[in-house]
């Protein structure tokens, strides 16, 4: 785990009428769970992409710990953005659904097996590792999708509207699972959401509000924008 800092970060898309991010100063301490709340179009996804290295800021700097990662290529940052796509592959077992990203990254079979076993334990999926996805409950399927990010053992985990596509019933359950898991693993996590309910339910840690590209309301004393 590592802390993350945005220092005077600016971002504009080419030909855009207004900048996407303006003067962003925000530090998330190592192991913290930070909620980034803002309406659609406020710049949340762009801020996460800037941190993940998928978008270059037009000004300012981004740090992981003490390391300036502003110009570092995305694969070298040790920051993982969990995909909101959670389609699972029907012919692959749960273990292979978890581990295929590691195979893609060139890890050895032993390393993949070990990481998958550990993530499965953390996600309470050990019993179903050999099963096909069709045998899983809806909540278990979401845990597998989250597990795909965790097996990569990132220093920082980014979740961009991870519950966006869930029905009401699964929504609360998965939200709670994410919170519990983060508390256990202590991976520095930024959870971006446009749902006020989610923001309130998860606001035990750091929370910041983004509006029209500006980080306007650092809510929690001592934990939000410096």
């Amino acid at each position, binding site marked *: 785990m590592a802390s993350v800092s945005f220092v005077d970060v600016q971002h504009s*898309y*080419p*030909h*855009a009428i207004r900048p996407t991010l303006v003067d962003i100063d925000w530090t998330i301490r190592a192991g913290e769970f930070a909620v980034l709340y803002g309406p659609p179009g406020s710049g949340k996804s762009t801020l996460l*992409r800037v941190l993940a*290295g*998928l*978008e*270059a800021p037009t000004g300012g700097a981004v740090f992981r710990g003490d390391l300036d990662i502003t110009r570092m290529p*995305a694969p070298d940052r040790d920051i993982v953005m969990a*995909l*909101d*796509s*959670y*389609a*699972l*592959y*029907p*012919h*692959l077992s749960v273990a*292979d659904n978890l581990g*295929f*990203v590691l*195979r*893609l990254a060139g890890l050895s079979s032993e390393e993949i097996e070990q990481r998958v076993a550990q993530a499965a334990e953390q996600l309470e999926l050990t019993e179903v590792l050999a099963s096909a*996805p*069709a045998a*899983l409950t*809806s909540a278990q*399927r979401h845990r597998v999708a989250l597990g795909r990010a965790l097996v990569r053992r990132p220093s920082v985990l980014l979740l961009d509207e991870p519950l*966006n*596509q869930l*029905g009401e019933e699964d929504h609360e359950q998965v939200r709670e699972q994410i919170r519990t898991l983060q508390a256990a693993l202590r991976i520095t996590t930024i959870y971006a959401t446009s749902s006020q309910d989610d923001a309130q339910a998860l606001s035990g840690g750091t929370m910041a509000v983004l509006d029209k590209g500006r980080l306007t309301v650092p809510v929690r004393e001592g934990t939000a924008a410096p």
Partner: protein
Amino acid sequence: MSAAPLRTPGAGGLSITAAAHAEDLAELPWDQPLAEWPVQKLVGLPRGISRHVVRFVEISGAIVAVKETREHLAVREYYMLKDLVRLDVPCVRPLGFVRGRRDRDGNPLDCALLTTHLRFSLPYRALFTRSMDSGTAARLVDALAVLLVRLHLVGFFWGDVSLSNTLFTRDAEAFQAFLVDAETGELHEELTDGQREHDLTLAHTNIAGEFMDLQAGGLIDPHVDPLGVSERLRERYTELWQEITRTETFSTAERWRVDERVRRLNELGFDVGEIAVTTDIDGVTAHLEPKVVAPGHHVRRLKRLTGVDAKENQARRLLNDLDQYRTSLEYEGLSEEEAAARWKREVFDVVLGAVPADLSGKLEPAQIFHEFLDHRWLRSEAEQRDVPLQEATASYIAEVLRHRRDEASYIRAVDEQDSDTAGFYPPDPQGEHP
């Protein structure tokens, strides 16, 4: 036709917004979750891997895909698809959306997004057989690379690039790819390198996963390398993107390089809308920046000359035949237009006219003609003679076309899908698929 709500019976009532077929759509069982729709309402089309429940229904002769999703996502995707259609990007046609659904106990149900099924299109899983080799896999990925370049050129960030979110139609020996799922997409004036890289990274991961899955299901040749296939997307995309977007600098004495660049882009199938040539202050070097519009060079020429609709590679092949035909008539001094009209009447229409009605849904007309050309060439070579048109047509129909799968709407009986082992999802064995 613009979309308009069909009816909104009171606050919280069912509201169908559709560009067509609204009355027929109202007859569907919107008070039941899509996963529980009666089988007799459904059309058994193969589907890709989806995180949503997707079903196909027949409405006034058209096949409509129904996707259940959250209201704000459905409405957003509907308008996004409309934008993409306006930008002339190959994608499914949005038909409408249905809001305010409730079950019989009054519990709210998800919104439904409606899109029109593309005739002759197939999800990638339906294109695979156990004997499928790495060549077919590569051609699918090449088609996806072209689609991704086209999307990026118009400023569309996909956010979930995968074979599952794409439909394919045959285009001569190649495929053409169509975007199916725009849920995560964003339209910008222009994409940043980071956005393009994000799409490529997603594509790389998803394609590798999809091919590993096909392999685990025994659906493809075990020698196909999933990682290699997924790497190919990035290579093909980068190659194409660079050719299309790079700015060239050359001496002002080398103006022919403008023509050469345009020809190269045309060969790749892309039209050049305009070319910006700027010279240095001393006038010694010029900078060439083509504005690539979209693939369609051969499509438009074929359409202009013959009125025949085809895809890019099909059009290129048909035009080759037309040009050869014209050469054979050269002594008659016909113009290009006159020769094309005669080719259409005496060659193209003769072959298509010989296809019995019960076989006409097997393939698109241009694909049938393309395959006919292949067949005639193979026979002519084997027999060391020019096989006449009628003879080649008859043997193509009997020996090739009659044995092809019907691809107009690759519909299969629901019972057949239930026992299928080829990776398609039956309408409702498990409810929602993963």
